[in-house]
């Protein structure tokens, strides 16, 4: 039986490799998964690059940054499978929540942005800029938060500071007053809420309705060498994803994910996250928000090249590096829809016909071409209704605030 050692961080969205292992989907494909838990993305990445692990639950932008050689010598990584969309939230400290007038209900991004802009200006004038924690420099959290802030007229790095707080330490940083807000995945927002130190202000799904989140990353040469075994692994993950969203499966899934060796969190907290029921403030009734996590439907696991292109666009925007057509190609080449298709051809999986699409252009449901199965995409809009054309990154960047 072929073995894949898979690195992960204690987050609810590490669900698919964990459940593929625990619920027998891996074994059914003749694959053995060994999970390696770490506390920082830097360690997850080092273990992957230097062969302690064969694959990793990784931040999508970090896989791209690694391929582009940002912060370290370039190393070829490939992403043949997306582990999920959405699933993160922005949590304000209780004080910032009060200053922005956060109520019982979920805020609306544009209106909250206006309130936050006023607070940010006051704090800037007082020489104590608001500070937000994101989980990594190269994270979708960083890019979602910045996209929203810039979109409501708050300049990241000028009006507010953005610093790094690893997920397991994010709630502590909020409690200690090191940061005024955090953008992090579950269960860490809910843990901050249940501890009474913060209030959820927004879900990142309100900023982008279908935001690419964690991916499965492998070293490219190893992926090509073990093509057959990798295909079996992807089928196992896909089967785990299908089971993950079955209505009767949530309780079992939560019990497994909550264990000390995985998320090490209360079962009830994990249960809320995976059933899209999130408590915004302590002791409040959980709020149902459809698609808070998005692990399977609409070919969610398919690695669209246009998702990588959007992340690359944000990377040039916030690293303040010039757009390069060559880099854009490398970035999009990290996502491997061809490997996904080859692995899932002949299975029941929906396979999109195209490898790239306009991101944020679907406001109602839209049927699109599929090479296998039927694919109807739900709304994938950004909060500011801008769409992203992967063929025109420079034009998109020029029109960005």
């Amino acid at each position, binding site marked *: 039986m072929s073995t894949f050692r898979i690195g992960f961080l204690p987050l609810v969205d590490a669900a698919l490799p964990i459940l593929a292992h625990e619920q027998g989907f891996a074994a059914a494909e003749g694959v053995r998964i060994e999970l390696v838990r*770490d*506390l*920082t*993305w*830097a*360690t997850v990445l*080092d*273990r992957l*690059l*230097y*062969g*302690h692990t064969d694959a990793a639950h990784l931040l999508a932008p970090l896989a791209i940054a690694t391929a582009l050689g*940002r*912060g*370290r*010598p370039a190393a070829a990584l490939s992403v043949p499978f997306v582990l999920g969309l959405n699933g993160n939230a922005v949590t304000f400290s209780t004080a910032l929540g009060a200053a922005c007038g956060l109520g019982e209900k979920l805020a609306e991004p544009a209106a909250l942005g206006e309130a936050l802009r006023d607070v940010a200006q006051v704090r800037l004038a007082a020489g104590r800029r608001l500070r937000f924690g994101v*989980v*990594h*420099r190269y994270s979708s959290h960083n890019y979602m938060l910045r996209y929203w802030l810039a979109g409501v007229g708050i300049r990241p790095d000028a009006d507010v500071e953005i*610093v*790094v*707080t*690893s997920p*397991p*330490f994010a709630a502590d940083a909020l409690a200690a007053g090191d940061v005024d807000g955090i953008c992090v995945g579950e269960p860490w927002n809910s843990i901050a809420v249940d501890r009474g130190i913060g209030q959820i202000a927004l879900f990142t799904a309100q900023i982008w309705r279908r935001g690419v989140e964690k991916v499965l990353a492998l070293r490219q040469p190893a992926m090509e060498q073990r093509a057959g075994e990798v295909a079996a692994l992807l089928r196992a993950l896909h089967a785990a994803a299908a089971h993950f969203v079955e209505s009767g499966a949530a309780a079992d899934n939560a019990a497994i994910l909550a264990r000390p060796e995985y998320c090490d969190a209360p079962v009830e907290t994990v249960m809320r996250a995976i059933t899209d029921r999130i408590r915004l403030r302590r002791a409040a009734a959980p709020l149902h928000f459809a698609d808070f996590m998005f692990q399977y439907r609409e070919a969610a696991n398919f690695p669209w090249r246009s998702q990588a292109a959007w992340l690359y666009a944000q990377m040039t925007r916030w690293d303040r590096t010039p757009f390069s057509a060559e880099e854009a190609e490398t970035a999009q080449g990290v996502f491997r829809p061809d490997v996904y298709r080859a692995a899932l051809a002949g299975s029941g999986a929906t396979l999109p016909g195209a490898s790239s699409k306009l991101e944020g252009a679907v406001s109602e449901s839209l049927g699109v071409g599929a090479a296998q199965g039927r694919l109807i995409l739900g709304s994938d809009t950004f909060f500011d209704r801008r769409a992203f054309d992967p063929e025109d990154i420079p034009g998109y960047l020029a029109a960005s605030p």
Partner: protein
Amino acid sequence: MRIAIIDTSSSRAAIIVDGLRDAGLTDVVSIDPASPLLAQLERTCPEVVLVNLENPSRDLLEDYFAMSRAMARPIAMFVDQSDTEATMAAVDAGVSAYIVDGLTKKRIKPVLDLAVRRFEAFSRLQDELKEAKNALADRAVIDKAKAILLKRRGLDEPAAYSLLRSHAMQTNRRIAEVAQAIVTSEALMGDLP
């Protein structure tokens, strides 16, 4: 060449600092894990940063290196892709390093090699310490079991030990495990006739 050590284990950090100094690398600063990390780094301006692989501050550290205007920006090690063996040895030993661009491999390699040897020596020491602790705990429980056998069965000490030993061999268990079973049952049923 200024070297900074960031380690969650202060005793391991001390061992590495000593080693580097013995090797003639005297410009070494050990960063205090209990104080704010970035302020210390900014004062230190290191060219090489050694950090334990599993240090929980690494993502923060990498962000700081990427952003810093105060110091030359070190990047993750493994500068030379051809030298993957040395790199793997480092990762296996649990060391990660960040190195300012422009330092030659010849100058860095001895530092890395030394850090790797010291990390390995430290984990051997940890293992030995753990073994020694286990051995002590074993001896204590065996002594207790012997005392119980002395009292209950009127054996002398060598006979009590030999009884423990032969039972352990017959049941394919460690002597300490058999002794623990006796101690446990005595605790639960000691007052029964």
